[in-house]
């Protein structure tokens, strides 16, 4: 009798364990919060922010919030100043990781700024909030006039059979940062017509009058005019949206200012940008569109940072 009971008890435990495993297996295959659910969290976040009321949000117990790399109480910083939202909202999501982000045009006491927000959602609660805010007076260049709506290519779906793996996509983007460090566009899998828009301004190829501005993204790197960017470190790839072929990288460009000029073949000695003039860094949230295994477009939110300032998520 006793033995029988023991047996049935073991069986019961086994069944319980099995039952516990089943939903977990299902949730791994099918995320509990899909794309629509995740982007809904972003919308909820933005609405609460403009209402200056974080209590409206479903938050994890230990939720962490940073703005421009600084850990703050939720409700502070842009939460206190956001006065409205623009129409420009570009979402990207990785449902398998509970990760979602957006580039959004915001109004701050009536002045436009670009917000990058990354959320991590765990069990339908917000566990992580990482933001960068490009403001007119915290970055050397910004043009929000062009940000009416996202460029359509970022919304295109990649056919299921053409989707590279997460690791492949991250590797392609990593080569872009290697190309910057090495001054070599040839190692980067650029599409020949690649476009990069930074803080609302197209910087490659750009319509700026400078001779180098008109070059392609790859050719610009090979001129070594970005030599002042000594390192792109740390690098994180928190969101890889395979369905849309998007990778969000959050990185820090470090400019030690040990070199202000560079010899550019065919152009002679040129002075590099203003960021080569004193030790500083830039915090960058950069979104890459990968199509046909090439980097087709880049969109970045850039904020000037203190030299080697932590991103808050190391």
């Amino acid at each position, binding site marked *: 009798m006793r033995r029988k009971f023991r047996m049935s008890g073991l069986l019961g435990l086994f069944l319980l364990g099995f039952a516990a495993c089943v939903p977990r297996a299902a949730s791994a295959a099918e995320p509990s919060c899909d794309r629509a659910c995740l982007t809904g969290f972003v919308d909820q976040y933005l609405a609460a922010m403009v209402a*200056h009321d974080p209590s409206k949000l479903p938050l994890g117990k230990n939720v962490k919030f940073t*703005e*421009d*790399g*600084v*850990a*703050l*109480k939720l409700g*502070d*910083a*842009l*939460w*206190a*100043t956001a006065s409205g939202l623009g129409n420009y909202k570009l979402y990207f999501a990785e449902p398998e990781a509970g990760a979602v982000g957006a580039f959004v045009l915001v109004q*701050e*006491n*009536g*002045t436009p*700024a670009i917000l990058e927000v990354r959320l991590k959602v765990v069990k339908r609660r917000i566990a992580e909030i990482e933001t960068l805010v490009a*403001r*007119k*007076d*915290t*970055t*050397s260049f910004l043009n929000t006039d062009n940000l009416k709506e996202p460029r359509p290519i970022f919304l295109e779906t990649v056919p299921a059979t053409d989707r590279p793996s997460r690791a492949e996509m991250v590797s392609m983007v990593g080569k872009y940062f290697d190309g910057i460090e090495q001054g070599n566009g040839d190692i980067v899998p650029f599409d020949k017509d690649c476009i990069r828009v930074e803080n609302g301004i197209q910087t490659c190829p750009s319509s700026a009058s400078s001779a180098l501005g008109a070059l392609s993204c790859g050719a610009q790197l090979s001129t070594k005019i970005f030599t002042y960017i000594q390192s792109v470190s740390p690098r994180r790839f928190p969101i890889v949206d395979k369905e849309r072929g998007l990778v969000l990288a959050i990185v820090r460009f470090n400019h*030690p*200012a*040990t070199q*202000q000029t560079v010899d550019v073949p065919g152009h002679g000695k040129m002075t590099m940008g*203003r960021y080569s*003039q*004193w*030790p*500083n860094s830039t915090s960058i949230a950069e979104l890459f569109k990968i199509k046909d295994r090439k980097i087709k477009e880049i969109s970045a939110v850039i904020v*000037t*940072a*203190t*030299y*080697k*300032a*932590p991103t808050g998520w190391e």
Partner: protein
Amino acid sequence: MKKKLVTVAVACLLLFGVIVDKSNRAAASANEATPAVSNACDRDCLNGFVDQYLDAVVAHDPSRLPLTRTVKFTEDGQRLELGDGFWRTAMARGTYKFYMGDPVAGQVVFFGTMREAGSPVSLVLRLRIEDKKIAEIETIIVRTGMNPARPNDTGAESFEKLGGPDPLFLETIPPAERVSRDELARTANKYFSGMQQNDGKGDYSFFADDCSRVENGQVTTQGRSANEIQTAPPASGQSASGQNGFSRNTSYGALAGCRAQFQSGLLHFVTRIRDRRFVVLDTEHGVALAFIFFDHAAGNTRTFQTPDGQTVTAGPTNPWTWEMAEAFKVENGKIRRIQAIFQRCPYGMSSGWSSWEDAMSDKARW
């Protein structure tokens, strides 16, 4: 059972012994610390470390320095390897030099000018000396025109035009009139408490009648016109772009004198003055120096009522923090001179020398 009790009792006694021993040692070291450190490196010795440090910076060679094994270095609040940051770009020392030593604490703070890429920059340097070795290095570098937030900053040139610190800072206080370190810090801290969410209704008798203030090389207590102030480097809370529309009756800077500015209630937009670290308390000269952050949340604190009944909207329109070192000359319990070096930093940033809780607190520490 008995055996257990004995074991517990022995354990308790041992623990108690450890606690007593530790507290005795702590008390003994507290009693001994002051004279020991005081004798270790006097004012000249501390100033010598400043010169030695800056010469090594200009030579880009930290190996010249006597450093403790665990020396810590920060530049603009970021922990860096010694030799990085300004160490790579410094070209020469400038002409402005202001040393503030605290032999009791083994600390010295220096306000000065330097050259970087041919341009003058302002520097704040704090060194803590331990057994004649540098244990802590904290720096703030304020650059001219390089920071998008302060395109018109002329701080370093202005300091050099002043020539040197206000002579009052260098005068010794007669021994009979010297106050304790605590009292010195408490008086200086009244400045921060009176400015934070300033309402004009406090007791501002801690200002001497002739109190004046220099911020980044500019006198900001002379009651200059709003127009002059807008073209000068921004004083606390004013936007570099001048977009905040200060007018004569809503700008504290248009008022003459430290006390009048506080009485105006126009500094309300300084939301929080936090991480108040008094690192120099020089009772011999009546000089207190603190590293602090001024936060301007830029939300609903921008609109407020002044004591004369005006409703004023003022201050930055986006979250704004000044990273700052501020020195006070205190005589007879009153602040006579104030001098500050500061720059904009990411909102809410920490100094690298405090816990997050202390960094966010408005409680003074020394």
